[in-house]
Each structure stands twice: as structure tokens, then as C-alpha cells.
């Protein structure tokens, strides 16, 4: 495959999005085929949105979650994991690989961890494609 995989990132407004922004400000390198959508809290992401993204041609989805730091509620991690579990099931039914949907906690200044996660994910996706 000639073109690099396309990744859609869901970041959260107050915690992980500043880190994604900071990665750019600090001129850290990560592939240009990474697109970001910001939501207030990762638990509000709907499985059908994720499925829609795959239908529209994204090869991978990365959810940059708040982890236990979420200011909207302590159950954010469980709820987001629930969303991912449901989506994984839907993906299996559609014949998609569940490993192309990933989630990790990214703090407000975790620019380095974000870049590391996204470049690692990109490599994994490239292998999957082959």
C-alpha cells in the first residue's frame, strides 16, 4: 500500500486535546494522515460514529481519553471501555479487525506519549495492511 494509513483521533477538550495541540507546537513529528476531532468527554463517543469513520475510509481510530482524570465523572474510563467493547463487537460482525480501534489515557501535556502512541499505532496499522 502506497498511502499511509489514515487515523482518526478523538481527543477531549480540556485534557487530551491540549496535548495533541502541544505536540504540534513543539514541532514533534507524527504522520500527516492523523485527523483530530475534539469532544468534551470520551465517554460521549457513540459506537455508530466509530463505525461511520471506518465506512468513510479511516484505517484506525485512536481515542485519547482522560483516564481517571476526567472532570465529568469518575466512571469515564468504564463508560469509554463499554463504548469500545460494543464497537469491537460491531467491528467483528462487519469483518473489521478490533485492533484498529485503540484507546489510551493522554494527559494535558502528554505531547511525547501522544506522538509515541500514534507512531506506534501507525506502524501496527501498516503491518495489518500488509
Amino acid at each position, binding site marked *: 500500500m502506497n498511502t499511509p494509513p489514515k487515523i482518526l483521533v478523538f481527543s477531549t477538550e*480540556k*485534557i487530551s486535546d*491540549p496535548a495533541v*495541540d*502541544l505536540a504540534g*507546537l*513543539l*514541532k514533534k513529528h507524527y504522520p500527516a494522515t492523523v485527523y483530530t476531532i475534539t469532544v468534551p468527554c470520551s465517554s460521549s463517543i457513540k459506537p455508530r460514529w466509530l463505525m461511520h469513520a471506518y465506512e468513510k475510509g479511516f484505517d484506525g481510530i485512536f481515542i485519547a481519553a*482522560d483516564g481517571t*482524570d*476526567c*472532570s*465529568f465523572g469518575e466512571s469515564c474510563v468504564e463508560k469509554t471501555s463499554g463504548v469500545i467493547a460494543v464497537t469491537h463487537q460491531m467491528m467483528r460482525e462487519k469483518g473489521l479487525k478490533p485492533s484498529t480501534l485503540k484507546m489510551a489515557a493522554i*494527559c*494535558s*501535556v*502528554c*505531547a*511525547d506519549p501522544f506522538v509515541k502512541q500514534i507512531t506506534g499505532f501507525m506502524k501496527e496499522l501498516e503491518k495489518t495492511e500488509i
Partner: protein
Amino acid sequence: MLIKDEIVQETCFDTALYDAMVVGAGIAGEESALKLADMGYKVLLIEKEASIGGKMILLSKVFPTLDCAACITTPKVSETARHPNITLHTLTEAESIVRNADNQFSVVLKKKPRYVIENDCTGCQECEKVCPVITSDQFQFNLVARKAVYIPFTIANPRVALVDIENCMQCGACEKACPSSAIDFSQEEETLNATAKSVVVATGFKLFDPISIERYGYGRYKNVITSMQMERQLAPTRPFNNILRPSDGKMPDKIAYIFCTGSRDHTVGNPICSQVCCMYSTKQAQLLMGALPMADVSLYYINIRAFGKGYNEFYLQAKDMGAKYVKGKIASIREKENGNLILRYEDIITGTVTESEHDLVVLSVGLLANPEITKVFKNEKLETDPLNYILQPDLLSNPALTSIEGVFVAGTSTAPMDIPDTIMSAGAAASETSSYLKRLL
């Protein structure tokens, strides 16, 4: 229609009565406000800066755990900003606090204009791109520049732009560039009135300005910086993504720290220990040895005060990593042509006057009281101690009490202290306030 209006009026009146007003939204103010709000009290939180977070949000890491300061504080910041029981006003200062006949506090607040409609700004920073004015960035401690219309810093909350009207030339470029038409130059200073049953003072500290110690050459020698400027260079939201000395942008090889700059020093009027400068310098030394593995770090101290849990081990760890601790107070600094600095000092261990050359000098500045809030209380006196910190009349058994009933104090408003102690003090202030509010019923 009339009924609707009445309801609106009543709601407005209700929202102006708060259980507690917290002055200052640094880590102490946030912690007190959050604790009280979680207990169900209605809290009014005011902050004079454009973003909440205080000084902690600007730090690199915290000692002795080396946890990322911003990572710890941002979740608290966003929780404070969105808590349903907290009403937050940034760019706001209390003008007067008067105890009224109902034994509550009538408060007059002054809210400075932001010249940006808060609810409309999306934080896209398009205005920053087009602004032609360049001025120094106070949140990066003047290491770099910012525009006249700006978002205070990357992780600022609220993430809303503001216009620095003193430096703005009112060219209108931001107004044209703003996609949501949020720039509004017609905004004026607002006066807000509120009533609070109690007040928590969490106004924090001021940093010592070392320009008054002439022998250190701060302000004259470019490569003499303050510890806060070094802190910014080490922070994840750092300006250069590297450690650079200001004169020529070179990566420093020999760095010196001068402890007790502006603390434990009668000549500058601050005879007390700053409580944190030994430890934050030790922390910075460890971080520097990680960032610049080839650099030598020397730390000139009077006494090492590693008093807290895990602090001494942290100090010993820095020594094991190769930090060179030198007991001696610096007598003078002079600058060489290449920007390097010669430090003259008495080495107390050997008893000799010695000179050593460094290419960057960091002044470990102390903490000073911030007593401006005392002027705001009009019909009662908020007492201060001889060093202008808020007086704690019952220090041992009720450290959050002040000389005014119903006014409590949290964090470094009472004395210099580190972050763990500040958070504990803020918790104490919140529980003392809650107990007072319960007694009022």
C-alpha cells in the same frame, strides 16, 4: 410573560448569594472551592488572572515524586471550571468586602474587560496569527514573546483569548480574522455585587524579584535567570523544547544555582526560609541532568532544608546523580565577554575564597507575602503577621482561622509552603468553612 420575568429576576437574586467566596484560583483556592462545592455549598471563585491554575500549572514537575505538575493540576482546573456549584469569574478582583447586618459579607467585585466575548470565543487562535503586536509573554516569564491578543498559555482555562489593551494598537486585524465575531472592543470594566456567608482567602504568594540584589547582576547579565524561568524551560509546555541560555541560545554546560536568593536575608527584608527553594532547585538539578547529560550542575547553599517526607532521600539522590553541592554564599558575580559568569564565594568547608566559572546562573528565588487582600475588608481588619502574611491567631489547633470570624485562609497566604502542605491547608480551610456554615444554620 410577566411570570417568566419574575422567575428570571428571582433566579438572578438567588445566584448572587453564595455560601462561600474563594479569593484566588491557584491550587489552594481550587482545592478549597472543589471541596466546598462537593459538600453541596454554592461557591463563588474569583481569580485576577485570565486563567485559573495559579503558579502550579506553570511548573515542570513536583518534588519529591517528579510527577508532572500540569498533569496533576489540569484535571482539578477543569473540574473547578465546570463544577455546577462553582461560579467562576476570571480577570476579577474584590474591591470591597463588608460584613452586613445579616452577618454575611457584601462583596463588590471588579471584572476587567477581556475585549473578547467569553461565550463566543472558540479558542482557535486565528486572532493570534494576524495580530501584528509582539510583546513579552508573562506566562513564560519573558523568555519568549506573545501577541497583544492571546490565549494565556496552552493549557489555560477558560481557553478564551483576551486583548492586552495596553499593548494593543487597535488595528482591528483580530476583529476581521475572528470566525465567530467574538472580539468586542466596546467592553468596559464591570462591577458585580454578591453576598457570601463566608470567605476563603487563597491569594498565594509573590515571587521575589532579584533585581534588587545588585551583586547577582539579574537584569544586567543575560545569563542570570530566575528559577521560574528555568522551570518554564523544563516544563512540558516549554518555549524552546530545549534548555538554552538567553545570551546566545547555546546549550549550557556548567550551570550554577544560588540558593536563598531573597530569602533568609535581612538585607532584602525577608528573613525567613522560603521552604521550597532547596527542594525545587534539587528537582531542577535532577531534571537538568536528564535533559543535558553532559552538563555540570553546582548548587551553592547555606543549609539544605530537606524536611518533608521523602525530601532528604530526594536530595541524596541528586547528589548520587552527580549534582555538586557547595556550601557557601555568593559574594559577587561578574560577566565575561563571552557571556560566561564568574562566581566569587567563600567555600565554607575549606574556608577559602574561591572563584568558579559557569555559563548559566539560576537564582533560586524566595517567596514573599501577597497582602493586598487585607485592604479589601472595609469594616473589619484582616490582621497580618510581621512579614505581611495573613495572621493565624490559632495556629496550632485551628490553622485556617483568621482575625475575622467567617474569613478563612488557605495555602501560601499564611506562610511559604510546598504543594502538599498547600493542598492540606486548603482542605483544612474548606472543612473549617463548612463547620462555620453549619453553625450559622
